[in-house]
């Protein structure tokens, strides 16, 4: 009798050479690592200083958005034109803005709309865009045709132009409408990514195996196909999150974004950009915060991509 049961115990870490894939299907090698993908990725990310720094920064910004009062006790709306554009000092580390409002507390409170917009738009994009992509990829046929054509239509609208048109029509520029417009114009990208992964995923052997066992569509989609598509989506979502933070500022600059007296980094930047030669700090502080956030998200996405991609190990 063969002594097979003992074999399992001999295995510790991830097997390397001996367990390599069959010669006919070399590309499946990466799959080896998939299950522990997240565990592995986490381990690698924790060791990655760039990721940890970015993560920390995002945490800080996140807490500004969630609990601004932790960071400042000043009321950002207590303004007096007498203090217009007074440079930074000890009590007021960012100085005063053009209307004589405390710039530091404005920056703290300004984090919230930026984050709300970015998170809501990304969330909607992931849920709805992802969902449509899943349907299109999974069912194919006319479902795919319809969803793909609609995707084409939204994709062919250049992003900023589309945003300008939509927002000038909507008129009510608050974080929610802006998030909605950003979502409307970008969902096809995620839908495409998911659709692609689903199409390549639905013919994977293990999906077929589950189908052979009799698993239904829901089970196949949510248990087997989707989890595999999540990694590329997550990577993209992080990067998009950063892009949305920046987009809020650009829309404000173009005059279709948030409007004062709302507070956001975009407003801070676009209101004060004209003073950047005279009082550069008025531009530097919000820009620094913004660029830091975008940078952090992008770097996080990058690190995530590297960590999740077996090719880069």
């Amino acid at each position, binding site marked *: 009798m063969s002594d097979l049961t003992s074999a399992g115990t001999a295995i510790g870490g991830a097997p390397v050479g001996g367990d390599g894939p069959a010669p006919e299907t070399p590309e499946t090698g990466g799959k080896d690592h998939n299950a522990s993908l997240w565990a592995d990725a986490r381990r690698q990310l924790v060791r990655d200083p760039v990721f940890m720094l970015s993560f920390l920064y995002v945490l800080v910004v996140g807490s500004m958005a969630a609990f601004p009062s932790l960071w400042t006790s000043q009321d950002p709306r207590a303004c007096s034109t007498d203090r217009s554009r007074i440079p930074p000092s000890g009590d007021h580390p960012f100085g005063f803005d053009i209307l004589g409002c405390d710039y530091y507390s404005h920056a703290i409170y300004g984090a919230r709309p930026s984050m709300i917009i970015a998170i809501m738009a990304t969330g909607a994009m992931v849920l709805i865009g992802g969902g449509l992509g899943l349907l299109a990829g999974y069912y194919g046929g006319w479902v795919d045709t319809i969803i793909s054509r609609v995707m084409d239509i939204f994709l062919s609208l250049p992003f900023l132009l589309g945003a300008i048109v939509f927002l*000038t029509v909507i*008129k009510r520029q608050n974080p929610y409408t802006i998030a909605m417009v950003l979502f409307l114009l970008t969902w096809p990208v995620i839908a495409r990514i998911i659709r692609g992964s689903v199409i390549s995923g639905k013919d994977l052997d293990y999906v077929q195996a589950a189908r052979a066992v009799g698993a239904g569509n829901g089970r196949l989609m949510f248990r087997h196909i989707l989890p595999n598509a999540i990694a590329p989506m997550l990577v993209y979502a992080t990067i998009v999150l950063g892009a949305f933070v920046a987009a809020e500022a650009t829309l404000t600059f173009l005059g279709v974004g948030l409007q004062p007296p709302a507070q956001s980094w975009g407003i801070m930047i676009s209101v004060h950009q004209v003073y950047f030669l005279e009082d550069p700090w008025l531009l530097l502080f919000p820009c620094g915060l913004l660029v830091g956030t975008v940078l952090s998200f992008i770097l996080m996405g990058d690190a995530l991509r590297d960590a999740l991609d077996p090719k880069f190990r």
Partner: protein
Amino acid sequence: SGGGNDSSDDAAGQAGGELRIYNAEPAFLLPSAGDDEPSLYVIRQLYSQLVKYNAETGAPENDLAESIESTDQKLWTIKVKSGYTFDNGEPVNADAFIRAWNFAAYSPNGQNNGYFMKKIAGFKDLQSTDPDGDGPKKAPEPKAKELSGLKKVDDLTFTVELDTPFSGFPTTIGYPGFSPMAKACVDDSEKCNETPIGNGRYKIEGSWQHNVGINLVRSDTYKGEPGKADKLTYRIFADVDAAYASFQSGELDVMYTLPPARYKEAKSQYGDRLFELAGDSLTYVGMPIYNDAFKKKEIRQALSLAIDRQSIIDAVFDGRQAPATGFIAPSFQGARENVCQYCKKDVEKAKALLAAAGGWPAGQKLTLWANAGAGHDQWLQAVGDQIKAALGIDYELKVNLQFAQYLETADAKKFTGPFRLGWGPDYPYLETFLAPLYSTGADSNNSTYANPEFDSLLTQGDGANSIDEAIPFYQKAEDLILEDLPVLPMWWRKEAAVYSENVDKFVWNKVSDADYGSISLKQN
């Protein structure tokens, strides 16, 4: 061409050279249609009118007109100087004016400046009326094609009959909307808009390059005082900041305005070459008197008293505005200083007035309105902050309507709170600051102020025999609104222009602003 090298070095400077001018994209170059600043800046060089304004005093002087006379301020007889022609050789005569004014007034032509003809008798008959009021597919033809008030006497003489007497009429017709137009121009107005056929000191070279530039050259056929520079080159910018960058790079000779945020810098950098003049454009905060909350004049007075205009001007505009102390531009004949007792910040008095009026409804926010994208939100926010600080009334801004919708809201009287608007004079006559804005039912009376006493004072002023006689009536009318405050006057724009080292003598007309044709360049 047009060499001035042989002539002596006179005080007005030498002729010659190319003047590079900042401009925004004009709406129209047709004098009957162009009513915005960028259009007027070009049209004034392309067309000359019956009357021009003295650069220093702003007083009207005959230009194309030989004489403008009336005995009753209602029927005016105008004689045109002979010998003037359009660029295409057509004569500038009585017909040229009648033709132009009819063209402007006939509503199916859709000319913006038709509005200026409305004092002329018969104007109503040129307007198509909509019988059922909700717009059938095609508006019916107006009753008449020509203004009954315009009559040709002879080749160079015509009469203008007004609906009601108006003493300021000769002053108004210096406005470019009253320019004469060539027959060829009226026949094909679209082409004339692209390649104007003018009668002024300059004529167009090529045609209008939209969004890029407009090139003018001195007209050889112009019989009046010729322009100084050989060429006027308008460079078109969509963004003042971008234009200022070009100016700083030496690509422009004149900018008639400055980006607000660069004023201080320009002042220190260009010194003398920064030209400043108290202007005559009013920014005001209108009061929706149709809204219950604003019916009491004490409320309006209290709001006005809560605002420190100078401090806002310093913070937001770098001091580039002059606080309003009355309703008539200080530079206008008949304007008085410091007549507005509610235009200075006085928190105590404001509180007292508010209390007297029964206070502000608790919990209700004051909604401040402005149109989007024009940079009004900053100062409006400061106004709100000050009201909040002084009177404890919290505010919100409603600044997301595009201009069209904003104006429709104004027309429909749907503002729920103070609203920002502006007013620029149509002609250098103080009536322009009163009648259109505050007389009962006037077109631009957005606050729906109605005061019969005010109206009758205006009528008396309009019918007076001379300007000097008219002024006291207008001033009395101003006194009424100074007390009632249908709008809170905020400030008068200060004109600030910069010009380059190439400019020898910079000329600014008190009424028609930068006079490019009179600006001379240094010759080397």
